[in-house]
């Protein structure tokens, strides 16, 4: 679950104040808003990549407002995937477990598992160069999900995809998160997309978040 | 640990070992020499020879004389050999250089392409409109300064426009070699390194030689070793031979090489206290031996006439130098010593003037007139006062001793009542001034002047000259004054 209380965040000249919303456990939340209205900022704040000037952030009922990004139980998929260009897909999936000290056989097992779940098994030894848009998104997703976070944050994951891949991706996201009971915070500028994926929808208007 | 981090540490460790391991394992500390780049060939050869003979390495840093000058300041070097003496002099003025030794001479002239195609033959050719000429920058290169001086002297500098000027002499030579100019005014020693260039002498340049000197640095941590190498470099039979082979004209007054040269010094006995300390200091600093023979000058002169050839003679008086002057180079008067009368403390006999010596019952001591300058001068003094015969006739004078020191002892032990000695004899011992009183004479002929001269056939003329410079330095002068000598040498300007 993820809950935001009275959050105030500053991003350069720009400030978002008194953000309040909650996504119950296992639910798929979508935050909509025009480009540049602050939704990415809120996402970054939730992930711990931006300093908050006021308010609290709760993940699984734990106050993570002052925690390091890696200690919040959150997986992050940025807008263009931001893959590691010099590492293989396998290394992407194994990255988080390795950093967190998992044993190598546990890592290998998890990698195979994830690859199967996301259809990446044939691509395991490829590097990001030459992968299609959809494949890259799946790798980014797998990387974020590797250690089974409680919450998954997605920044416009579908914007760059073509029609067919779009539909595939929507289906994949819903299935994977539902199967693993992951709470999702998905931000987008498209209302249609929000309606396709989300259990809950929020909207940013005039610097405030309102439920829909 | 992360692979990248691990590799970095491995590299760092390897570096640390590699870098540190670059130190000498040997005990002999090398000499550090700053040498003008133009002399690389002869100096490298001499240093190599020296290392082979004595096992001491010489680390040479080459560069422009001016650039090297900047390095003298940091106190890490031992020797400085500049492309010409004006730099060495500058270094001496700044206090970086202690001793200097002459190496060779250079003359300026025109370097031209082989065969002298443009037919350059006279100094006035600099004004030829069909010639491209390169010179040294008068502000930066000593050859440039020299060029300007000579050209100005002969009225050729005004209106002279060189095609190009360079800050170092080698660059001038290079540009002639490459054919970008027709001639360059450089040193003959530099020109001889360029086998594809010819050199044209002209009388106006020939008339003035420039010299190259090597200097030992004041901050050197191994002055004795540095001096030794410099002696080797400037030795007639060692370093200078290499320079001559490379087209340099070596200095005429050069020492023969010896690892520990021995200098035979004949010195009037009365000078002993004044120069003893200087001898010690000099021996220690240069690592050489000075063998002084102190005696009455009369004896010394006889020895010389019998065939002895000392490297130097420091005489008690001018008259005794004149007797052997053909054996020595031109003497320099260093000090003066007044003759005084010594009487027992309290002057019980009341001897106050020279005529008082005629008093009855006095036991008088004089130095031997033939064996010592003191004796001869005493005789001369008394004769000039018209007293000599009378005093001798009184029978008061006991048989003469050879030296003033002996007379001082006799008066201290009460064997005599009055003696005539040098003031320095009296002041040689702090004890003696307590036992006796000094009675001034102050007559025209009561002063002896001491000249110093270097032997004509000496194998170590420069070494002796440096020794001379030691005892006429401020510290050396103080020793003379301490013992009652007067200083006669004019101040160096």
């Amino acid at each position, binding site marked *: 679950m993820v809950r935001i209380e009275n959050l105030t965040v500053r991003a350069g000249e720009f400030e978002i104040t008194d953000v309040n919303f909650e996504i119950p456990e296992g639910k798929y939340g979508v935050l909509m808003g025009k480009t540049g209205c602050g939704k990415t900022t809120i996402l970054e704040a939730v*992930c711990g990549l931006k300093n908050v000037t006021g308010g609290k952030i709760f993940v699984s009922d734990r106050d993570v407002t002052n925690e390091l990004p890696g200690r919040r139980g959150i997986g992050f998929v940025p807008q263009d995937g931001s893959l590691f*260009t*010099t590492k293989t897909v396998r290394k992407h999936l194994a990255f988080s477990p390795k950093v967190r000290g998992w044993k190598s056989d546990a890592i290998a097992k998890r990698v195979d598992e994830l690859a199967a779940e996301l259809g990446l098994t044939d691509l395991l030894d490829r*590097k990001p160069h030459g992968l299609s848009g959809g494949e890259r998104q799946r790798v980014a997703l797998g990387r974020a999900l590797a250690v089974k976070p409680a919450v998954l944050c997605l920044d416009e994951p579908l914007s760059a995809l073509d029609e067919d891949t779009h539909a595939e991706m929507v289906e994949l996201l819903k299935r994977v998160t539902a199967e693993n009971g992951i709470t999702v915070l998905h931000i987008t500028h498209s209302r249609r997309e929000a309606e396709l994926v989300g259990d809950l929808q929020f909207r940013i208007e005039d610097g405030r978040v309102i439920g829909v | 640990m992360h692979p990248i981090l691990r590799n970095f540490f491995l590299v760092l460790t390897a570096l640390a070992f590699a870098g540190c391991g670059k130190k000498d394992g040997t005990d002999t500390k090398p000499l550090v020499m700053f040498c003008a780049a133009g002399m690389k060939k002869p100096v490298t050869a001499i240093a190599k020879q020296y290392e082979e003979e004595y096992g001491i390495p010489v680390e040479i840093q*080459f560069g422009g004389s001016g650039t090297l000058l900047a390095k003298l300041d940091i106190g890490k070097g031992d020797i400085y050999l500049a492309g010409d003496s004006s730099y060495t002099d500058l270094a001496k003025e700044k206090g970086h250089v202690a001793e200097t030794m002459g190496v060779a001479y250079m003359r300026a002239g025109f370097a031209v392409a082989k065969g002298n195609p443009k037919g350059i033959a006279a100094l006035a050719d600099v004004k030829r409109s069909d010639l491209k000429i390169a010179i040294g920058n008068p502000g930066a290169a000593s050859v440039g300064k020299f060029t300007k001086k000579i050209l100005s002297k002969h009225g050729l500098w005004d209106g002279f426009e060189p095609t190009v000027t360079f800050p170092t002499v080698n660059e001038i*030579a290079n540009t002639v070699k490459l054919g970008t100019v027709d001639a360059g005014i450089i040193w003959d020693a530099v020109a001889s*390194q360029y086998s594809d260039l010819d050199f044209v002498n002209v009388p106006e340049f020939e008339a003035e030689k420039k010299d190259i000197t090597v200097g030992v640095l004041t901050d050197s941590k191994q002055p004795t070793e540095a001096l030794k190498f410099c002696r080797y470099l400037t030795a007639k039979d060692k370093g200078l031979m290499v320079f001559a082979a490379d087209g340099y004209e070596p200095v005429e007054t050069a020492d023969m090489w010896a690892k520990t040269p021995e200098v035979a010094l004949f010195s009037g006995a009365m000078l002993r206290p004044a120069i003893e300390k200087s001898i010690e200091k000099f021996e220690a600093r240069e690592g050489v031996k000075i063998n002084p023979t102190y005696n009455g000058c009369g004896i010394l002169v006889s020895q010389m006439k019998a065939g002895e050839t000392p490297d130097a003679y420091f005489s008690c008086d001018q008259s005794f130098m004149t007797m052997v002057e053909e054996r020595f180079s031109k003497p320099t008067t260093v000090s003066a010593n007044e003759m005084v009368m010594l009487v027992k403390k309290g002057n019980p006999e009341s001897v106050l003037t020279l005529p008082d010596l005629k008093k009855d019952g006095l036991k008088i001591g004089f130095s031997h007139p033939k064996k010592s300058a003191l004796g001869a001068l005493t005789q001369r003094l008394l004769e000039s006062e018209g007293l000599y015969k009378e005093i001798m006739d009184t029978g008061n004078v006991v048989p003469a001793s050879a030296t003033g020191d002996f007379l001082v002892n006799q008066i201290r032990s009460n064997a005599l009542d009055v003696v005539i000695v040098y003031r320095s004899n009296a002041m040689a011992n702090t004890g003696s001034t307590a036992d006796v009183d000094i009675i001034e004479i102050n007559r025209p002929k009561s002063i002896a002047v001491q000249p110093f001269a270097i032997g004509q056939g000496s194998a170590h003329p420069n070494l002796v000259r440096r020794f001379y410079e030691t005892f006429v330095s401020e510290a050396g002068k103080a020793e003379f004054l301490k013992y009652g000598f007067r200083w006669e040498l004019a101040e160096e300007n």
Partner: protein
Amino acid sequence: MSKSDKPFLAAISSLAAIYLLLIVLMLVADAIYGFRAVPFSSDDPDKASLVKIFTDKAVINSIKLTLFSCTVSAILSLIVAVPTGYLLSRYNFPGKLLVDAILDIPIVLPPLVVGLSLLLLFNKMPPGGTSFEDMLNSLGIEITFNVAAVIIAQFSVACAFSVRTMRNTFDQISPRTEQVAQTLGCSRARAFFSVVIPESWRGISTAGTLAWTRSMGEFGPILVFAGTIPNKTEVLSSTVFLEITTGSLETAVIVSLMMVTIAVVVLVGVRMWDRKNEGGLYHG
């Protein structure tokens, strides 16, 4: 290619060609001058020959020292430049403009001044009595007029170039990748080593070779601070200088051509190795 694009290509190619031609012609001039004057071997003790030059102990030691010192200097430059470039790229702090300017100073200072400054720093500071050099000497470490001075002199200038290169490299890598790594559990340090450095391998390679070649060409600071002592602190660049000052222009040119050859071999080698590792220095 459409007709209208051909003139454009011709124009930019010509400009490139002119400069290339200048460089190649310089080398050709050197080669002709040098090889015409210096025979392969010679019995005359006064005449230089290729055999003599390349079997001269001093020249061989000079080559060895050059390779060693340039490599060490390049490594040190990278060790400093990578974190410094990262700092300048990712962080803001008071006085950053000033720091930026200071880091460019070694590029602007005339090389001889760099050498003189180092000489003064080590031997005349701190003022009054024991200098840094004296302190180090008492610990058994000798810098001035030793190999260490060669490396320090080269590093002082080369690093400035590397810092600039790395700063640009990091500027072009989106901070997102590090941020993702952080969310995956990396500390900033770990993110730096595991993600940022592999991502910037091309920039690192460029910065490293730039430092290496810059070190090789530099001789002013070495001349003053390390002295060009044959068999001890003489490197190829100072060998060339010495040969010129003693009028052996042909030998200077030959040695320079050798330097160029070594540099080209290294540069091409590094590029080829880069290409082989396309997609990663460290395989994932």
